[in-house]
């Protein structure tokens, strides 16, 4: 991004303060203070002039940062930030349950979870992603997904589900957040914040933080695409921000509604009884995902509304009704998962 690359130059141009003449005692301190104040003022003026020369006005620069909020995120960038967030999310939530090698029998739960997850993901709007489903070694009841298709469920959640349809509902909801690119909105906000920090530092004539400076230098194109190669500390910082947002901030209510709709659709497509998802939500404590999702009763009402919408739709699609013989399943959960 030209703006931010130019700002690197603005910051680099701001050198250390010049020393004043050496005077003794308090007089000397006062003189040095005065000189430093004048020097600071000159630096601020110089930086502001250079900033204006590059961007027109500070407002323009801020506007350019704001554009990052609506820019597409490239696939490799999405996967990389998703991985970084996933690493920190797993580290903060008990770690991942997995065997010591590929052939370890302890991998059975992970295999079962991925067989279910990949079946659902193959029917999603982004079947081509490298979907990865992992079990977190935590007694809490929760599930998350990070950009690029990394999905986590806790051991505590797996103990709660009564059948495969309920687990499929949880996974489908997380898949829907990925296909809807909902978490990327949180990432975009992190980018905008860092960009604004950089602009603010330029306006104030102060050096931006190391992270922000590296971030600015990493903007590689007008797209605002971030190439994290060689800037792994920046990636860790931004991954931590995204992971924290996923764990503590709510998605947009419209995104939650959409995720539930898409999840119910996936359940139907995969042949699972969608009403089981509503039942599962009803079984959970009121605290389930209460920091990051709408209240439980609201979610249940939304899911039931979707079921009614499905049922009452005039079936304008030419495909309905197709009349499958077996209906929708709510089979027992895989023994490997039930044994956890």
């Amino acid at each position, binding site marked *: 991004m030209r703006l931010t690359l130019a700002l690197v130059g603005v910051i680099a141009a701001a050198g250390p303060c010049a020393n004043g003449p050496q005077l003794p005692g308090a007089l000397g301190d006062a003189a040095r203070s005065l000189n430093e104040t004048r020097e600071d003022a000159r630096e601020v003026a110089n930086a502001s002039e250079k900033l204006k020369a590059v961007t027109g006005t500070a407002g323009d620069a801020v506007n350019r940062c704001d554009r990052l909020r609506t820019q597409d995120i490239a696939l490799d960038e999405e996967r990389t930030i998703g991985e970084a967030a996933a*690493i920190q999310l797993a*580290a903060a939530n008990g*770690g991942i349950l997995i065997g010591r090698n590929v052939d370890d029998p302890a991998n059975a739960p992970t295999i079962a979870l991925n067989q279910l997850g990949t079946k659902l993901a193959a029917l999603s709007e982004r079947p*081509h992603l490298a979907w990865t489903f992992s079990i977190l070694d935590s007694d809490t009841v929760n599930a998350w997904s990070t950009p690029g298709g990394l999905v986590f469920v806790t051991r505590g959640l797996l103990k709660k589900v009564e059948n495969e349809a309920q687990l499929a509902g949880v996974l489908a909801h997380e898949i829907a957040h990925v296909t809807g690119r909902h978490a990327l909105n949180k990432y975009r906000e992190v980018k905008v914040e860092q960009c604004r920090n950089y602009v603010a530092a330029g306006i104030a004539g102060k050096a931006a933080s190391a992270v922000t400076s590296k971030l600015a230098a990493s903007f590689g194109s007008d797209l605002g695409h971030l190439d994290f190669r060689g800037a792994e500390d920046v990636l860790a910082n931004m991954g931590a921000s995204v992971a924290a947002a996923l764990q503590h901030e709510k998605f947009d209510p419209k995104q939650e509604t959409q995720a539930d709709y898409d999840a119910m659709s996936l359940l139907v497509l995969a042949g699972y009884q969608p009403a089981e998802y509503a039942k599962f939500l009803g079984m959970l404590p009121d605290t389930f995902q209460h920091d990051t999702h709408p209240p439980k009763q609201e979610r249940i009402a939304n899911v039931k509304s979707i079921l009614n919408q*499905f049922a009452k739709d005039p079936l304008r*699609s030419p495909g309905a009704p197709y009349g499958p013989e077996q209906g929708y399943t709510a089979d027992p959960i895989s023994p490997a998962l039930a044994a956890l």
Partner: protein
Amino acid sequence: MKRSTLLGLGALVALGAGASWALGSGDTIYVRARDTRVFKDPDGARPIGAPLQPGDKLVWIEQVKGTKFHKVKTAKGVVGYVLFNTVSATAPKTEVVVKQDGAHHIDAQASAAYGAAARGLTEESRKSAAHAPDPEAAQKAVEDLQRVEAVIAKKVKGGGR
């Protein structure tokens, strides 16, 4: 919900739940699932032609009542039947990739070829663990995630692409 009301939902969702339009014979639909097979009859017994991939276009002919199948024509002119949940009225989402000459939107097939399905953590995300708030726990998470990826590639159908 009564079982009978659920029975018709699958095809509705597959071809555009909640949509206010109706497909007509000759309209374009899209393959949504990998390795989608076209069958000679609406029973799934005898596949014909090569497997189709997400984003492939089909001409919709009709839904075969009382079955899970739609009658379609492929781009190569093959007329046959596909399962309802392998097709969609909308194309799979495109992806953005950045090349030397700028950003490009690419379709599902190109995404797969570009490496969207590549397994294993990127070098930069692996290295990011050293800078995490808890580097030791993060490094363990990296190693565990790598093993999960390896298990999927070797043990899960379709996981290795």
